[in-house]
C-alpha cells in the first residue's frame, strides 16, 4: 500500500513531464498533419489525407537523410572504436582521466560554434590552402556532402566513444590472459572476446548517433552550404519559410514512423546478436 503510493509519487514528475512535453506536442503534430495550409500560410483546421499524399515531394530529403545517417554512424564508429579501445585498454591510469576529459571538453561548446570553426578549416584558407602547398590545387571541401560527414562525425564522436569505452572498461582482462595461455593470437582474441563483449557499447553508441542524425539540420545547413538537404532542413523550411504547417506536420509524422521502423529493425538485430553471443558461450 505505502509502497505503491510511494511508487506512484515517484513516477508522477516523469509522468507529467512525458504527458506535457512529449504526448501533447505529438498530438498537436498529428492533428495538424490532417489539416490544411491556410491561404496566407500557417494552419487551417480540416480533415484530409492530402498532406500524406504529398509526401513524395520530400522524397529527396528522406533519401539524403537515410543515406548520410547510416554512413555517418558507421564513420563515427570506425573512428570511435580504436579511440575507446586505446582509452580503456592501452592507456595508463595516470593519463586516463585527463584524456577522457579531453574527449568531453569540446562537447561543452555549442555545436553551432564548433561547426562554424569547421567552415574556416574546410574553407579555401584552411585545409585546401595546406594541400596547395604540397601541389594539390583547387581542392574544394566546404559545402559538400563530405564536409557534412566530417561535421557529423566530429560533432557526435563523444556519443559513440563513451558507451564503447564503458563496455571495454568492464571487460574482464582475465579472459584475454586465459586466451593467451591457450595459445590464441591477439587478433583472434580481439575478434572472439573483446569485440563481442564490447558490442553492447557499440550498439548503444550507434543508436544514439543514428537517432540524432536522423533529425539533424544544423550541420548540413552550415557545412553543406544549403545544398545538402536533410529531412530536418525540410522541416525548418516548411515551418519557418513556406509556413506550410500542415505538410510540415505530415513530414514530421513520417520521420517518426521511419525512425520507429529503423529502430525496430535495429532492436531485432540486436536481439538476434545477443542470442548468437550466447551460442558462443561467453555469457
Amino acid at each position: 500500500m505505502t509502497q505503491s503510493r510511494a511508487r506512484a509519487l515517484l513516477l508522477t514528475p516523469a509522468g507529467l513531464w512525458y504527458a506535457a512535453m512529449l504526448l501533447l506536442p505529438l498530438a498537436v503534430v498529428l492533428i495538424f498533419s490532417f489539416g490544411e495550409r491556410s491561404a496566407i500560410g500557417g494552419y487551417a483546421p480540416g480533415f484530409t489525407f492530402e498532406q500524406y499524399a504529398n509526401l513524395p515531394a520530400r522524397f529527396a530529403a528522406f533519401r539524403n537523410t537515410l543515406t548520410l545517417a547510416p554512413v555517418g554512424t558507421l564513420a563515427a564508429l570506425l573512428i570511435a572504436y580504436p579511440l575507446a579501445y586505446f582509452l580503456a585498454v592501452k592507456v595508463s591510469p595516470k593519463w586516463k582521466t585527463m584524456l577522457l576529459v579531453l574527449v568531453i571538453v569540446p562537447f561543452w561548446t555549442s555545436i553551432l560554434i564548433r561547426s562554424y570553426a569547421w567552415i574556416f578549416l574546410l574553407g579555401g584558407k584552411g585545409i585546401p590552402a595546406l594541400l596547395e602547398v604540397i601541389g594539390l590545387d583547387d581542392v574544394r571541401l566546404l559545402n559538400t556532402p563530405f564536409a557534412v560527414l566530417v561535421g557529423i562525425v566530429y560533432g557526435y564522436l563523444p556519443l559513440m566513444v563513451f558507451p564503447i569505452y564503458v563496455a571495454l572498461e568492464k571487460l574482464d582482462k582475465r579472459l584475454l590472459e586465459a586466451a593467451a595461455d591457450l595459445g590464441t593470437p591477439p587478433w583472434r582474441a580481439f575478434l572472439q572476446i573483446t569485440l563481442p563483449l564490447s558490442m553492447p557499447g557499440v550498439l548503444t553508441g550507434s543508436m544514439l548517433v543514428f537517432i540524432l542524425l536522423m533529425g539533424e539540420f544544423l550541420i548540413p545547413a552550415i557545412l553543406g552550404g544549403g545544398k545538402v538537404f536533410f529531412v530536418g532542413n525540410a522541416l525548418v523550411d516548411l515551418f519557418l519559410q513556406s509556413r506550410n504547417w500542415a505538410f510540415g506536420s505530415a513530414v514530421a509524422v513520417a520521420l517518426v514512423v521511419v525512425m520507429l521502423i529503423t529502430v525496430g529493425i535495429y532492436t531485432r538485430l540486436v536481439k538476434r546478436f545477443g542470442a548468437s553471443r550466447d551460442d558462443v558461450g561467453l555469457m
Partner: protein
Amino acid sequence: MKNDNTPISRKAFMEELRRYQKGSVTRRHFLGVTGLGTAAAVMGGAMPGLLPSRARAQDIGDRVVLATWPNYHDAANFDAFTDETGAYTQVNVFGSNEEMLAKIQAGGSGWDVFVPTNYAIPTYVEADLIEPLDLSKIPNFDPASFDPRFADAGTIDGVVYGVPKNWGTTGIAFNSDKTGGVVDSWKAFFDGARDAWDGRVMVHDYQLTTIGNALVYHGFSFNSVDPEELAQAEKLLIDVKPHLYAISSDYQPAMRNGDAWLTMCWTGDGKQMNTDMPEIGFALGKEGGEIWSDYYAIPKDAPHKEAAYALINYLLSPEVNAKEALAHGYPVADSRTNALLPEELLNDPIIYPAAEALSPLEFGAAVTLTDPNRAELMARFKSA
C-alpha cells in the same frame, strides 16, 4: 591578385567572431532556427539585474524587444536610447520575412517592434497581426519628408501600419579580381555560374530573390507566379545548382575570404564589403530584379507598446537615423536625414544608384510570400 592562400589571420578570425556575436553570421539559417535569438531574449529577461532600471518622468518600462535584420543598426544608438529612456533594447535578428511572419503567426513572439518589408505588410494586415500606428506617438515621422515610393507600402486602405526605415535593392556582388570586371546582368550571373565561375557563385536561401532573379533571367517578372514561367525558372535553378558554391543568405564571410566570387546581395552588404575590400563591387542586374523598402511596425500582441512607439520615434529622428545609415550603408527615404549625410555617401553609386539603373527593378509582390508553388519550387531546388 589578393593573397588568399594564407590561413585566416587572427584579426580576420576576431572579425568573424565579432560578426557572430553581432548575430550576422548566423543569419537566416541559424539564429531563427536554433532559437538562439529567442534564447538571448529570454536570458535577458530572466536577469533583470542586468538591465538598467531608472525612474523616469515618462515611464515606458525597462525594455523593448526589436526583431530586425542582420547588420541593420548602429548598436551605439540603442545604448543612447537606454540612457535617454531607461528602456533596454533586446535585438533579435532574422533572415527572412517568412520567418518573422511564422513567429508572429505562432503567437507569443514577445516582440514590440519588427521590420517587415513592403510586400509582407498586406499579409500581416490580412491576418490581423499588425497594429495600426498612432502617429501622434511618432512625431519624428514626417510624411512630407519621405519619398512616397518608399513610404506608401506602409499604408493600406488609408491606415498607416508601418513607417519607413530604409530601402534598398537586391543586386550582384562580384569580386572583380576574379571575374575580371563588372557583372551587371542576371544572364551573366547564371551563365557564368555554370562556366568560368563554376563553384564560386552563391544564391540566397530565399525564394523571393532566388526564384525572382531566375525569372528575370528569362525575361519574366520578378514576381511571377505563372506556372509556365516558374517551370522555366526551376529548370534554370536546378541546372545551375551543382555548380553553386552555396545556397545561403550569409554570403559575406565566403565573399570576404575569397571562396565565393559572386553572390546575390543586398545593398548594405554590398556597401559593407566594398568599403573593406574595394575589389568587391556591387551592381544591379540590368534586366531587372528587386527594389524594396522596410518599415518599422508593431505587432498586435506587443507586450511593451509604449516603449515600441518610443523606440520607433527615437530611431526616426534625423540625427539618429543618419548615424544608423552611416553604420549599415542602406539608403534612407527621409530628406531630413539625407541632409545630414556626407556628400560622398549620397553620391555613392552602391547606396544611391542612378535612376535609370533602378527603373527596371520591381517591388516584391505580396502574392510571392504566400504562393505555395514558389515555396515548393524552392524545396525542390534545395533538395535536388
